[in-house]
């Protein structure tokens, strides 16, 4: 339990630190929010009034405190540009990002686990070399470049999938999924490559362990040794990497979202920064950070489930 609480406190501290730093950074931006809000024709009196209304005359710390108090109540403020509540805007964009993320991870894992196992088991064989080369190529392709290539072949030439656009789930599951497949594959192929390489490396190391020799000496069949004895102890680095991927994707799928015109969090964030919509930026950063930290927290818990040696007593030499 102490382990759990320590992690939780750590999580809260990281979220506070990130949002505070964002607040300060946004404060540094060379733009006058009050001017923007008051509009082109506003007099200096209007601007001053807006400034007063938004509390911009207070110190950064005071404003951060106020924002934090609001956030704790679930109130993330109102967009300066659209006057829409920030929470609402995020709620409408988040599902798109989550769907992309989930599909991409499913694709990536579904490919990486079998491929990793096969190439570790048959290390240095032609199939391992082929998989390895494919992975190496994929790792070197930026996901946006891959997206362009995929669009060119599968949308423009073969016309299997739409090139851009998002169809809400309310208009049917297939149209929705169909629009998501290319974006998800663009992300998944690059991730598959790194996941597979990591799994292969760890699995080869595990297969050299004495307990694998022992299991083979017990006469167990190969598939059983690979799946039951070798896979679990080999999956820690892959799990860590998966956590990092998901964490980065929550806020980092901007380019994919832009290419495929998906209304996700990433695009909301970028457009908010461009329009200097600070409450919106702040809200997005909060959601992204909480997501990142929560995923890593889950990964830590998974370690505990996968490996019983979570904490060992110090030993005397």
């Amino acid at each position, binding site marked *: 339990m*102490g382990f759990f609480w320590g992690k939780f406190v750590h999580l809260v501290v990281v979220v506070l630190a990130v949002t505070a730093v964002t607040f300060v950074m946004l404060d540094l931006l060379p733009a006058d929010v009050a001017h923007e809000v008051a509009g082109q024709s506003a007099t200096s009196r209007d601007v001053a009034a807006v400034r007063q209304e938004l509390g911009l005359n207070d110190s950064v710390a005071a404003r951060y405190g106020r924002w934090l108090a609001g956030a704790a109540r679930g109130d993330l403020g109102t967009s300066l540009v659209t006057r829409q509540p920030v929470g609402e805007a995020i709620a409408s964009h988040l599902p798109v990002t989550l769907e992309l993320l989930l599909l991409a991870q499913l694709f990536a894992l579904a490919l990486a686990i079998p491929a990793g196992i096969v190439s570790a088991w048959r290390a240095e064989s032609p199939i391992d070399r082929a998989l390895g080369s494919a992975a190496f190529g994929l790792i070197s392709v930026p996901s946006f470049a891959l997206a362009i290539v995929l669009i060119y072949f599968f949308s423009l030439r073969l016309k299997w999938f739409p090139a851009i656009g998002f169809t809400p789930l309310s208009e049917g599951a297939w149209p929705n999924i169909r629009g998501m497949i290319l974006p998800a594959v663009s992300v998944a192929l690059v991730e598959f490559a790194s996941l597979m390489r990591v799994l292969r490396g760890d699995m080869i190391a595990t297969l050299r362990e004495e307990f694998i020799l022992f299991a083979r000496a017990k006469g167990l069949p190969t598939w059983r040794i690979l799946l039951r004895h070798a896979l679990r102890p080999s999956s820690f680095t892959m799990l860590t990497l998966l956590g990092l991927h998901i964490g980065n994707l929550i806020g980092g799928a901007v380019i994919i979202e832009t290419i495929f015109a998906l209304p996700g969090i990433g695009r909301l964030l970028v457009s908010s920064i461009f329009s200097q919509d600070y409450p919106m930026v702040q809200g997005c950063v909060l959601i992204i950070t909480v997501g990142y930290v929560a995923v890593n927290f889950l990964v830590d818990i998974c370690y505990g489930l996968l490996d019983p040696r979570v*904490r060992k*007593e*110090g*030993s*005397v*030499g």
Partner: protein
Amino acid sequence: MSDRSLQQNEPLLRVIDLLVEFPAVRGQKVHAVSGVNFSLARGETLGLVGESGCGKSSLARAIMQLPRPTSGRVILDGEDLTTVDPVRLRILRSRFQMIFQDPVASFNPFRSVGESIGAPLRTLWGVDEDERTRRVREMMEAVGLDSDQYYRRRPFQLSGGQCQRAGIARALMTEPRLLVCDEPVSSLDVSVQAQIINLLREVKGRYGLSMLFISHDLGVVRNISDRVAVMYLGRLCEVAPCAALYAAPVHPYTNALLAAIPRPDPERPLPEGGFLPGELPSAIEPPSGCRFRTRCPRAQASCSEVQPELREIAPGHLVACHYPLLFGS
């Protein structure tokens, strides 16, 4: 003259109430070494035996001040190493050196073996490079390493035995008086082990060293030591001259250790039944009173209450036990 004779009678090393603890999880402490006392005369070799986890390596490092022990005193040549200031400690370091368990890992893979052997001269005395190279080559020849062949080699290009020779050379560079050997032969093959033990004995005589020789191998310890100390879970159980200890062990733990050695006699099979029942207790929560009582065949109720101190039962023969195995009792 009287000063000198006094110094001659004074032991080279005295370890008094040495305590080593380090933090474990949840604010607990590992009691690695708990109140160890012994002394080491000039020119003497003290063997320290014990099983893994008994704290013998922690004891060696505490004597080396790596890091300084939690409490207690380590007096070398009349100076307390645990209280001298860091500058003085650095100067004193030339007088006590260490040999490590894993000879290959004790050398920086990034540097040649010759350079590493000369490092003490550079760090402690600032000897210039030409002079260093000359003295290193001399010392390499003295420990049986061909300096032309091995000076420029990296540690992983040497065999374990050659690396341990280099380790001995490095420890001898500053002409120390005390050599702390932490399991110096346990990672070596038997044929090489014998070479290294012979070499250690030889350099000890040639350079007038005193040695603290740590090992889990009772045969090795008997061969090289004048006196032997037996350690169990952070405490000394028995300290005695080598011949006496092996001929008539007095502490039940020493007895069990000796009985457990395999003998080359198929007609006399190993005694039936466990030598030591139960498991080694945790060093985080050691048993009260005598730490060996949980596995001791002679344990009585009082063993859990009163901690036995080392007492002399024969000249030079010390034991920490309430019910020792004495002749005629």
